[in-house]
């Protein structure tokens, strides 16, 4: 084992973070300030998620870490190794087997259960930040439920582009009260947040904020009656497993501009192929 406390942070710090998490769960969508610590990985690389995971993990937990939906992307590997080293918890790549899932930019395709916690890494927790740069002002706007600026922005999008030109980090409203940043997930994932059985925790280390969604919380993507929200993805099936319902990455395969689409959720794709589903280019992949 290591010389560090279980999951790196000392117990007092974990307690402070747990308090912030509990407050966040009690006021869904509200950004709770917390005394974020300097972690041994850089700000902007998941320090908020790592601190929330560290405060959430128990020795019995099984952890899954994904980045862009994949377990094998470099930063996911790095964070998983960090917890293997400092907490000694079991890790897994199988969504259903994990009790805590830390994610960056995706929600797994497989529906999560009441026994699971989903921890999001958040770069900019303030959904109003790019409309109003001052934190003093945006906190006031949340307190007064003054979201007019956001609606004007969405309206201007429609006036200019004929649609809301936000493809990821698409703002949501939680239980009819707080406008919340869902972290930079593609808007395809937004509907999964609403009514989710698992606890959803959001950690922003650099910006020192934690927020949360208790199970079965109503989460609505902002829209207008005549311009309803639409979850979108590439209009194609996965070339490896044939899935039509999963979010797809576009991969450039040759110098001639050839491309293929594959599931961004690598575990979902793997499980489907293991169950015998085959996409248009799936056969040779299995042989390789």
């Amino acid at each position, binding site marked *: 084992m290591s010389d560090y406390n279980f999951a790196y942070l000392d117990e007092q710090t974990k307690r402070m973070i747990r308090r912030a998490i509990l407050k966040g769960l009690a006021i869904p969508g509200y950004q709770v300030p917390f005394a974020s610590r*300097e972690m041994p990985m850089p700000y902007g690389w998941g320090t908020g998620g790592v601190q929330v995971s560290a405060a959430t993990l128990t020795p019995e937990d099984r952890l899954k870490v994904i*980045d*862009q939906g994949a377990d094998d*992307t470099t930063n996911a590997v*790095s964070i998983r190794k960090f917890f293997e080293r400092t907490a000694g918890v079991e890790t897994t790549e199988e969504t259903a087997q994990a009790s805590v899932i830390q994610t960056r*930019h995706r929600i797994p395709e497989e529906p999560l259960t009441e026994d699971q916690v989903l921890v999001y890494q958040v770069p900019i927790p303030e959904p109003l930040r790019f409309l109003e740069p001052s934190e003093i002002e945006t906190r006031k706007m949340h307190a007064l439920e003054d979201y007019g600026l956001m609606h004007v922005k969405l309206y201007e999008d429609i006036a200019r582009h004929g649609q809301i030109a936000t*493809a990821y980090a698409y703002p949501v409203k939680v239980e009819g009260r707080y406008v919340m940043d869902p972290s930079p997930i593609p808007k395809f994932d937004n509907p999964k947040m609403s009514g989710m059985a698992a606890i959803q925790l959001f950690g922003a280390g650099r910006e020192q904020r934690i927020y949360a969604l208790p199970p079965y919380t109503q989460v609505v993507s902002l829209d207008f009656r005549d311009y309803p929200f639409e979850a979108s993805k*590439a209009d194609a099936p996965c070339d490896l497993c044939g899935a039509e319902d999963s979010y797809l990455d576009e991969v450039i395969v040759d110098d001639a501009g050839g491309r293929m689409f594959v599931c961004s959720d690598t575990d979902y794709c793997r499980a489907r192929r293991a169950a015998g589903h085959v996409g248009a280019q799936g056969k040779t992949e299995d042989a390789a």
Partner: protein
Amino acid sequence: MYVAVKGGERAIENAHSWLAEERRGDPAVAELTIDQIREQMKLAVNRVMAEGSLYDPDLAALAIKQARGDLIEAIFLIRAYRTTLPRFGATRAIDTGDMACIRRISATFKDAPGGQVLGPTFDYTHRLLDFKLAADGEVPPAPQAAPRQEPTPHITGFLNREGLIQAEAASDETPPDLTREPMELPGSRALRLQALTRGDEGFVLGMAYSTQRGYARNHAFVGELRIGTVAVEMDIPELGFAIEIGEIEVTECETVNQFTGSKTEPPQFTRGYGLVFGQTERKAISMALVDRALRWRELGEDDMGAPAQDEEFVLYHSDNIQATGFLEHIKLPHYVDFQSELELVRRLRREAEGAQQEAAE
């Protein structure tokens, strides 16, 4: 045929091995020791201690070695180590009036009790590359004088006696600590000073420079700049009195700023304050200028809309560890977000082309 990207773990390990090899450089060249860095790269060590918020020259030297001389990376190593240290208590406030000065200058008085002490400064060197140093760095010992025994009074104290300089409000309140509590704005001056002393030297310098060039100009003179060692004392409850637990070197700068008065304050001099670990005078002077600029509200001055007057702007962007982390995180994969943008741009283009065609018809 596309094969899912695998092997991230091995790639990371190999990259780390290569990094270690690069850090060492040519094995035929003798390896740097921590002592060498601490003694001969002292100003780098000082910067790492100041911005790392941890006074330990050996650890700072180790961090510089490990970081291959990248000081922000070294500061990051120190910060990450610092968070794991238990906190035993707080020391008494240091008394810079009792400083054993190696350098002490005033730009506002030709002479003053305690005198002008130039100390080890680059100030009047001609910046000519010394090629002799490439071959042989040994130097004859510098001339010595008997050290001053009595305390060196602060220059601003003399102005204070005439009531010409604004008196600072004394307070025994425990100052806030932004490493333990989330930063809440508007902050107190103590919080701002803490953020500035650990802020990035380049950022604070740039902010200070902007005030000199007219973005909230505040007419600063270096009333006093002093560098030296001070005793650090701590009250030990079991003993019932304070004992000296060590010495630290600090740089203190007090600026004297011309001030013609405002709606609330009479004409008088005002000050900016800088205090930084080690010999770090560029940083201490910059800090004092920015401190003064941020005091506009307290002194009843106008908000010129200058960046250096904007507390939120300065405090949220002065920390180089936050800044570099967030800046460099854009190297991480973003292909999920990029994919959603790709689809959006393609759709917008399709619709724009459709609209153009319709217009043409």
